[in-house]
């Protein structure tokens, strides 16, 4: 599904190398988790994959089902099936959440040569999906993320994911700023979307999210590289001993 090879990335503005050769392969139907200390390059990886400005790829490649992601505009990556759940979802005053969702869904359909969804079908679908995430009708009417609590923002991210039905989902520290109940709600939403054809890359600092979204593979990232990969037990090891042991072991 997602094939990242020897990816080197630096900040455009300053000559600072952030990713120093990331190799990662996420198969369809699998959940991969990336853990790592602050500044290890986890969020940079998610931004580079989704096409945010300000980063320069100096070496390597990132393919989604054989398509070179790095050649595509952000909207083309989305249409190709990539979805990034933001660590800090953006507030957009003046744009209603419903308008936002419908515009996004129909833009992707159009880009894929599919027919746009009519208003009635769309409304039905969004209401059903929103209900599963305990998002009330009021939240759908409000401007995108404006005045939303931390939990509401993250649930809104999952709602977008559910509506857009991407092939590859990247969750960037989706657990940050959430209390236990909110995290469970978000995790349930994500788990409901797990399917054979869909890959997940879950970026997190903490093991606790992985109690709810059970990963198949766990990677440890440090200083712009993936330094260790293993099963779910690797996350537990981090939880108990911190990153220090693993970092020392590798060095």
């Amino acid at each position, binding site marked *: 599904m997602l094939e990242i090879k020897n990816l080197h990335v630096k900040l455009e503005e300053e000559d600072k190398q952030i990713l120093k050769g990331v190799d990662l392969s996420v198969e369809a139907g699998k959940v991969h988790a990336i853990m790592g200390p602050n500044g290890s390059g986890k969020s940079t990886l998610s931004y580079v994959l*989704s096409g945010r400005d300000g980063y320069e790829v100096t070496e390597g490649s990132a393919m989604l089902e054989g398509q070179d992601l790095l050649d595509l*505009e952000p909207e083309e990556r989305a249409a190709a099936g990539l979805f990034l759940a933001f660590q800090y*979802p953006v507030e957009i005053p003046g744009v209603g959440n419903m308008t936002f969702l419908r*515009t*996004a869904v129909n*833009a992707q359909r159009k880009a894929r040569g599919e027919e746009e969804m009519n208003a009635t079908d769309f409304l039905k679908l969004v209401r059903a999906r929103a209900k599963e995430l305990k998002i009330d009708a009021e939240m759908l009417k409000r*401007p995108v993320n404006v005045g939303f609590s931390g939990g509401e923002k993250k649930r809104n991210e999952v709602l977008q994911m559910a509506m857009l039905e991407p092939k590859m989902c990247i969750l960037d520290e989706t657990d940050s700023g959430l209390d236990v109940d909110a995290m469970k709600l978000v995790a349930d939403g994500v788990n409901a979307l797990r399917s054979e054809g869909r890959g997940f890359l879950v970026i997190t600092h903490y093991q606790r999210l992985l109690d709810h979204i059970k990963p198949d593979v766990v990677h440890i990232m440090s200083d712009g590289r993936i330094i260790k990969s293993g099963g779910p037990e690797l996350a537990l090891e981090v939880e108990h001993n911190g990153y220090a042991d693993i970092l020392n072991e590798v060095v």
Partner: protein
Amino acid sequence: MALAERRITATEARLEGFDLVKTGWSASARADALQRLREMGLPDRRDEYWKFTRPDTLVQVETPKASVFDNDEQPVFDAHDRLRIVFADGVFDPDASDDLSLEGVSIERLEDIADKDIHWAKDLYGVLEKRGQSPVPRPFAALNTAFATDGLMIHVTGKPSKPISLIYTHGKEDSDAILHHVIRVEAEAEATILENGPAAARFNKCMEVDIADTGKLHLVRAQGRDHERRAVTHLFARLGEESVFKAFTLTVNGVLTRNEAVIELNGDDAIAHIAGACVGDGDFHHDDTVFITHDAVNCESRQVFKKVLRNGATGVFQGKILVKEGAQKTDGYQISQSLLLDGDSQFLAKPELEIYADDVACSHGSTSGAIDEGALFYLRSRGVPEKAATNLLTLAFLAEAVQEIEDEALAEDLIERLENWLARRS
């Protein structure tokens, strides 16, 4: 001396082509206005009040040409049930207009009543304009009062079942039109006035609005289409107790538009909202100049102006709230914002507050900015192409002003115009 002389010469040159109406009820008001105009003179570039907008082409004798733009876009408000009154290049067109009778309102043409000695409009024609000449002179309004060739005297006594729609069509590339409307809204009465169309190559329009206690008036205006057109418009409004006046203007295109609004809140608990949204490209120049006077207790005023500028377009906002002594519990709000879609465009703003009462809440803000990159990326990451995302954010920026329109169907209609404008330029 040289400066004053130049101004007098320019003013007299402009006046040469006009004949003053010397008979009928409006004659004295016209003569007064001419005298006023001669005293103040037409503005030039050195005028502080015209610092951001060059008045030259409004002053010059020869009308600058404006070609007539033609596309198959359905004119704004066409889908709404309304009383249509058409002015072609500033001249009333009876064939294109509906019958002027409508329950709850009396509508008369200035020209039809010109010879009468007595008319209700005599108490207002040029009167509100004259009040609005202080503390800042507005010479084009005086010119208008003196030499208006047509206009409507609208007396609202009830609640007309549909909006009164003034349609200004433009067919001659050198038309120079002066229209003067007077509107009186009686107690408990309520009406909606619509205005749209490019009007003329050069258009000078003055509207005097007097709202009695508890009266309500809604004004929704769309200035658009012909890009080379020039317009200077004045709105003078006086509000009685518990009266409501809400005005919204959408402007698309136009090399020169100066919209002045002078509002007096004279009765307690009155509400005045004045809002505008404009989108302009290239040599577009748009100026909103607003002066709101609070002279009664517990009144509310809102000014909401939003401008989208690109390819070197210019936006101007001069807005003032004057709170007179004793106008306690005043709630005054003023916001002027521009969205600059490139580095060549500019927004010039002069927000002012002058307050002589001690128990008031007044706020004003003025900002200029580009599209929010974070929001743009968020939309794109969800699959919305860059241009569509930019357009969506542009409409979102204008939303606060457009929301001032109470009638949702009218608002939808104007939003559609904005969408079309944006789509044409994507």
